[in-house]
C-alpha cells in the first residue's frame, strides 16, 4: 500500500503535480470563452436580421402607404409603385402552387411508396439531390432557352416565369415531402392493407392525411423561396411593366358570348402577357442612382419580407403543430 501511495506522489523522484497539472482554471476559462463565442455566433445572424428589418423599415417608411399598391412604375420615383409587380408575384405564387403541389407530392409518393430499389430509382434520387443544389440562375438559363425562346419566341411572359420557378422549387418540395411521408408509421399502412384496401386507397386515405402537415410545410417554405427569387426572373428577361398581369386561364367573356375562337385571347397564356415580380422590381430600383428610388426599394423590401417571412412563420407554426 505504501508503495502505491509513493507512485501517486512521485514519479522518478519528481512530485506528480509538476508532471500532471490539470490546469483546471485555464481550461474552464477557455470553456467560457468558447461558450461565449458560440452564443455570439448564434445571435449574430439574428442581430443582423433584426437590424436589416429595422433598416428597411426606417429607410422606406416615407413610402409605406397604399400608393405602393396602387401605382405602376414610372420615371418619377414619387409617382411609382409596385402594383404590377405585386399582382405579378401573387399570380405567379398561385400558379406555382397549382403546379408544384401535384408534381411534388406525386413524385414523393412514387419514390417513397412505389419505387423498387433498382438503378432507375437510384438515378431519379441522385438526380433530384443534384437538382436541389443547382444555382437558381441556371434555372433561369433553362427557362430562357426552353420556355422564352422555345415556346414564346423570345417573349418573357408570365407563363415562362411560372414554369421556371416551378421547376426550381420542385426538388426541395420532393425532398421534404418524402421525409414527411417516410415519417408516417408503417403500422398505419399495414392496418389499412389488413382490411383489404388497395395501395392507392391506403395512400390517399391514410398516408397522405397523416403526412399533410409536413407536406404543407415543405410546399410553403419552398414556395416562399421561389417567390423571393430574383436571379432566374432577371435571366428570363422580365422587365418593368405598366399594366396588370392577365391571370385568368380562360377568357370567360368570350366563352359565355360564344366566341369560342377567342377563348384564349387576353388570358394567362397570351404572348403579350409580360410580367414583373416584386423582387425583380426591387432589384431595378436598388440599382437606380436616384435616392428616392432607393427609398422605394426599401418600401418594396418591407412588403416582400412580410410576404416571405409570413409564409415561413406559417410553415413553422404548422410544423410545430404536426409534432
Amino acid at each position, binding site marked *: 500500500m505504501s508503495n502505491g501511495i509513493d507512485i501517486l506522489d512521485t514519479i522518478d523522484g519528481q512530485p506528480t503535480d509538476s508532471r500532471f497539472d490539470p490546469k483546471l482554471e485555464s481550461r474552464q476559462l477557455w470553456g467560457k470563452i468558447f461558450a461565449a463565442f458560440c452564443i455570439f455566433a448564434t445571435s449574430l445572424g439574428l442581430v443582423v436580421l433584426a437590424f436589416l428589418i429595422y433598416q428597411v423599415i426606417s429607410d422606406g417608411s416615407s413610402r409605406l402607404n397604399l400608393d405602393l399598391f396602387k401605382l405602376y412604375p414610372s420615371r418619377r420615383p414619387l409617382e411609382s409603385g409596385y402594383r404590377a409587380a405585386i399582382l405579378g408575384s401573387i399570380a405567379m405564387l398561385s400558379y406555382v402552387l397549382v403546379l408544384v403541389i401535384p408534381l411534388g407530392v406525386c413524385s414523393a409518393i412514387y419514390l417513397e411508396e*412505389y419505387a423498387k430499389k433498382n438503378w432507375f430509382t437510384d438515378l431519379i434520387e441522385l438526380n433530384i439531390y443534384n437538382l436541389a443544389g443547382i444555382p437558381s440562375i441556371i434555372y433561369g438559363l433553362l427557362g430562357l432557352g426552353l420556355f422564352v425562346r422555345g415556346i414564346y419566341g423570345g417573349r418573357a411572359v408570365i407563363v415562362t416565369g411560372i414554369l421556371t420557378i416551378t421547376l426550381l422549387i420542385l426538388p426541395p418540395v420532393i425532398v421534404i415531402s418524402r421525409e414527411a411521408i417516410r415519417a408516417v408509421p408503417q403500422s398505419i399502412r399495414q392496418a389499412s392493407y389488413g382490411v383489404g384496401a388497395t395501395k392507392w386507397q391506403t395512400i390517399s386515405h391514410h398516408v397522405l392525411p397523416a403526412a399533410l402537415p409536413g407536406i404543407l410545410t415543405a410546399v410553403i417554405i419552398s414556395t416562399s423561396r421561389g417567390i423571393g427569387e430574383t436571379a432566374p426572373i432577371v435571366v428570363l428577361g422580365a422587365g418593368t411593366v405598366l399594366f396588370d398581369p392577365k391571370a385568368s386561364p380562360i377568357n370567360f367573356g368570350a366563352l359565355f358570348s360564344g366566341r369560342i375562337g377567342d377563348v384564349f385571347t387576353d388570358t394567362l397564356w397570351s404572348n403579350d402577357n409580360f410580367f414583373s415580380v416584386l423582387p425583380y422590381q426591387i432589384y431595378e430600383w436598388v440599382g437606380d442612382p436616384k435616392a428616392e428610388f432607393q427609398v422605394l426599394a426599401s418600401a418594396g423590401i418591407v412588403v416582400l419580407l412580410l410576404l416571405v417571412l409570413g409564409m415561413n412563420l406559417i410553415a413553422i407554426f404548422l410544423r410545430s403543430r404536426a409534432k
Partner: protein
Amino acid sequence: MSNSVNNPEPDSLDIYQRRDRNIRESVIGYALLFCAFVSVLTTVAIVYVLASETVSFFGKASIGEFLFGKTLENGSYSCSWTPQFAEKGFCVWPTVNGTLMVALIAMLVATPLGLATAVYLAEYASPRLGKFLRPVIELLAGVPTVVYGYFALTVVTPFLNKIIPGLQGFNALSAGLIMGIMIVPTIASISTDAMVAVPTSLREAAYGLGSTKKEVATNVVLPAALSGICAAIILGISRAVGETMIVAIAAGQRPVLTLDPRQTVGTMTAYIAQVAKGDSRVGSVEYEALFAVGMMLFLITLLLNIISKLISNRFKETYE
C-alpha cells in the same frame, strides 16, 4: 334474397370491380412515375440547353482563349472577359476569380459562425431553446437574396468605407461578408444534425475522463461529426458560388484578375444577370457566352454537390 350469398351474380360483379380496381391502381402508379420523371427531364433539358449554346459559342470563340487567354499582336499576354464589348475578350478566369474571391470571404465568415451555431444548438442550448432557435436561424436562409444585396450595398459598404481606405463603391468584401451571413443557416443546420447524431456515450466517456464541456465539443463531438460538417461546408461553397443577387448588386460587374477584396469584381453569376438583363440578340456571341459561363457554373456546383454527397456517404461514422 337471403341466399344471394350463393348466387354467382354478385361474385362475378366483384371480379369486374376488382379488375377495374387493378387497372386504376396501375394507371395511378404510372402517373406517379411520370411526375417523378419530370425532374429527370429537367436535368436533361438543362444539360441540353447549356450544351447546345456552349457548342455554338465555341464555334465563334476559341476554347484555348477561354481557358488560357491570348497573346495580343504586340506580344503581350491578355486574359479578359468582355464578350459584350467591341474589343472582345473570351478568357473566363476573371469571372471565376471574382466568384472564388467572394465565395472565399463568405466561407471565412460562414464556416466559424455556422459551426459555432451548430455547437451551441447541439451541445449548449436546452432542447426547448434549441427547438425555438433552429427555425428562427433558418429564417435567415429564407430572406430573399435581393434584400441581402440591398443591405450589403446601402449599409455594409458605407460602414466599411469609414474603416477601410480605398474601398470602392462596389466591392467583393461587403458582398462576401453578407453572403457569409446568408450561408450560416446552411452550414449550421446540416452540422447540427451531424452533431446530434453523435452517440451520447462518447460524450459521457469524455466527461468521465474529466473533460470540460468545451473539450467534449471540440475534441469529441466535432471530430465524430466531421463527415457531416465537411459535407455542410462544401454545400455552403456551392451556394456561395451560385449566389447571384448579392454580388450583382453589391460586388459590381467588372470581371478583373485581382486578389484585392476592396475592388469591384465581376462574378460568373453577375455576368449572366447583367448580360441577360440587356438586350442581347439570339445567336450573338454575348448571348451564347451566357450559356458557356452557365455551363462552367453548372459543372462547378455539380462537382461540389457530388463531392459533398460522397463525403457524407463514404465517411459516415457508425457507432454500432
